[in-house]
């Protein structure tokens, strides 16, 4: 009878869509990291997202940035994205086109409506903040996770969700952080919390997923907060509208499209 009971439990767990590995046999840190990279919390695989970022400085002053971003996976895991800003008024109409490259720097173009033409932005921007937010280009492109050593340090729930705790040390020379500690939800491998440590090993930023949403079968982090601990600056990013669409026309990701707000 004992084997029958065990079999019933196994059937029930499988039917409930439990994590792919049992508690006794957790996935390796590398497996977890790969699943994290497979997830697409920002819709880079193909989506049109309307988002709003609220920036709060150390004095409590707030400013807002509104944008519409379209993305398309064109050479997995590479994608291209075009972002159009609608607020603040000074930035309205400005656009940004990014085409990820497998080797070397990504292609980036900026359109400033006042100049009526776009310019290619050269140089390594990975450690730069994305349009004044607390997200750096490196935080968004996740290259540092692809080329990294990972170590599973334990389990810890975040807001009652069971999570793996993974310590990731990037191998890239231009990595922004010395290491990051990630809390990865066991069921869908979304990163619910991340602590980023500077080159001196001191906490630099924390990322928290405040709300996750499933749209057309894809999990998105629809509300999140990035807090720059050292500069007391915070960005809260809300994905207000998500339209999943994998087959956006390639013409949408060209300089011509960029210059036509």
């Amino acid at each position, binding site marked *: 009878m004992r084997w029958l009971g065990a079999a019933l439990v196994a059937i029930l767990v499988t039917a409930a869509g439990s994590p792919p590995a049992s508690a006794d046999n957790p996935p390796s840190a590398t497996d977890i990291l790969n699943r994290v990279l497979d997830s697409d919390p920002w819709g880079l695989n193909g989506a049109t997202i309307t988002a709003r970022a609220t*920036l709060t*400085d*150390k*004095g409590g*002053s707030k*400013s807002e940035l509104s944008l519409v971003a379209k993305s398309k996976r064109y050479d997995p895991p590479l994608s291209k994205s075009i972002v159009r800003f609608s607020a*603040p*008024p*000074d*930035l309205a109409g*400005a656009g940004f086109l990014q085409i990820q490259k497998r080797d070397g*720097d990504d292609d980036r173009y*900026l359109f*400033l*409506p*006042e*100049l009526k033409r776009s*310019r*290619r*932005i*050269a*140089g*390594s*921007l990975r*450690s*730069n*903040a994305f*349009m*004044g937010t*607390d997200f750096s280009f490196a935080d968004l492109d996740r290259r540092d996770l692809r080329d990294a050593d990972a170590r599973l340090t334990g389990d810890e729930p975040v807001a009652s969700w069971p999570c793996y705790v993974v310590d990731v040390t990037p191998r890239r020379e231009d990595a922004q952080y*010395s290491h990051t500690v990630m809390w990865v939800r066991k069921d869908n491998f979304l990163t619910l919390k991340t602590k980023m440590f*500077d*080159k*001196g*090993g*001191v906490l630099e930023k924390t990322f928290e997923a405040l709300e996750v949403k499933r749209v057309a079968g894809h999990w998105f982090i629809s509300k999140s907060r990035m807090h720059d601990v*050292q*500069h007391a*600056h915070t960005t809260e990013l809300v994905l207000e509208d998500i339209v999943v669409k994998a087959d956006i026309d390639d013409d949408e990701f060209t300089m011509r499209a960029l210059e036509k707000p």
Partner: protein
Amino acid sequence: MLLKVVSFLLRHPWTSIVFIAVSLGLAGYAARTIEVRFQYRDFYDYPGNPSVPLLDRYYAEFGDPAGYVVLLVEAPDVFRPDVVRHISDLTRELERSPEFVDVLSLANARAIRAEGDDVASGPVMARIPRTKEESDQLRRTALGSALIVRHVVSPDGTAAAVLAKMRAPPATRTVERQAAGVEAARRVVAAHPAPDGVRVRVTGAPLVEVETTRALVRSQITLTPVVLLVMVATLVLTFRSLQGVLLPLAAVAVAVLWTAGIYSLFHRPLDIIGSVFPTILLVYGVVDPIFVYTRYLRKVDLGRTPEAAILEALSELALPCFLTSLTTALGFAAFASAHLPTIRTFGAIVAIGVALSFVTTVTVLPLLLKVVPLPNRTRSSTRIGAWVDRALVGLWAGIRSRRGWVCGGAIAVIGAGAVAARGVDIVSVYVSVLPRGPAQDTVHTLERELSGVVRLVVFLEGPAGSMKRPDVLQAIDAVSKLARNQPIVNSSVSLADLVSEANQAFAGGDPAERRVPDSSSLVAQYLALADPADRADLVSDDYARSHIRTLLTDRGSKALLGLRDVLQAEIDRRFPPLGVTARITGSVVDFEESDRLVAEVLWGFVAAFSIVVALEWVVFRSARVAVLSVIPNLVPIAACFITMRLAGFHLRVDNSLVLCVSVGGLFNTTIHIVARILQEIRAGATDPDGIVERSLRAVGPPSLYTAVVLSLGFAVMGLSPFPGLQALGLLSMVTFLTGFVSDATVTSTLMRSMFDWDRAITAARSSVPSSLAAGVGSAPGAR
């Protein structure tokens, strides 16, 4: 009353000694907490300083420049690939150190610039240059940005800086923390041998403060024993016995230790000014014990028992010693009303120390005289004493018939001093306050190769968003450019540079487009493109506050304040119509306070001088004597200013202490000579020439010994690594020696010529009591 206390102590010597020993233990225990520290902030950060809140707000917004450890890399060409790699290695290694929070160098400095038809943003160096072309490209980029050149690389490309910002915030940045940062940087340098022909030095404000603090500690460790040695030598020559050396020294040592214990209660660090107080107390404190011990020995020679000799000596000397201690203490206490805590504490603690020295002279010294056996040879008269006596007799014989010449000479010296003083300005110079060696070299190198450490900041405040308005940015640009054109300015940067460089970059690199555009949207778009970390260095997140950062060569407060006036005029013209407040801060606060401190020392000196003259008036009951005493004591001050003029010194925080130091010592001999003359008259003497000669012979030798002790004691400061304290040693020596010569000649001449002898002699004959004469004693030639 005093004699009753002394009698009581002498009846219970061991109980008293145990009590004193316990008090010394407590004082020593308390003194352990005294921190020796040099931080410039100590000179201006005090409650009520109206400049500090603005400076603090500025530091809170844009960071404290004193928090950077700097690695200075010097090479024939810092853009050479191997040198760039070395800079990159040092940068990465420093980034890994927990002591630092941000590290900036050529390896990670960012700039926006044109690259052909593209706009390049981000680090000026994507990778280590491999070819000469890549090196040249890096050179063009770095030297083309106002935000990089003179900040992390010199204009000629022979020096580069790696700026490591200390993680500890200013409030917790102790000297130990700074030393840890400096050591961490040194370890990084040691672990990365520089390529051939490349030199890497650790510099920066933390190093300056650490090295200066260490120099202060070394000064205390070396100068105090040397001062003691000078005193021992003087005491050996004076008394020729072990007791004659040890007992006065023991009395003064107790006073110094008690004072140190009290100093700990002030909770102030021992800074460059405070560090002088042990020397002052040792030197001043030994004077009264010399007088008392001399008188004691003479009483013993006359056949008195030790106890009777002690009481008789004190009965004769307590009042003059009290008066000279009181005038000295009041002289220093005059500084206790100063605004600056550092000078206020200094004035208060030296006044307390001088008072305690008097207390130990009349308590500890008698106790020691009671319990320590008499020396075999009690007579203090020596060949030196005889020689001094003959010299004083000869001196008086020489000047008594040339009194007009002496007075004329004194007036001439005072006049020359006044002329010299007109050419001596109050000029605070940051660099020359620092000790010679690494601390000074550091600042000179940073001034020569980069921008220096002295900064004048225009701090701008307005409504949120105002700092990205084109008209405001254009005004900022104009003021910054005006600053750049001033001869002492090495660099001046502002948010306008960031916007101008972006505009030039988006205009394909056209130099004519290096300007703030008129479109507010375009400015906002450029600023949105800039990394917040770069922007934060120049403007607040809400664009309500910004600054123009001007770094300059330290040519002293006069030049700095002149620059401030030039910029202030431009600021007043440009910013009020824009609704933006622009105020100047930065090093100008330090320099203004340093100048103010010197001015307070000057006024404190004038106040103390006046107080002593007023006291003389009260004590001697003669306005004429009080006025006469002014002239001989102005002569050494005049000599001091003449020396300053000849040596090219200006009045600064450190060397102005000569006025504090001298005010306590100047009037002593004058008081003793006048008191002695009155005593002679009280004793029935009527021949003015004879009275003056005998007074001079009685007071002259101990006064000469005192002058020698004071001069040599302070001259020891010539061994200090601090240039200002060296100057203080020289000036003190000149002042005290001139003071003795002036008293021996001018005081005696003026008293002989202008004192109302007839009235004094008539008063003495009618036995009008004189409080002072009664206190001094009645035996002519007793001293």
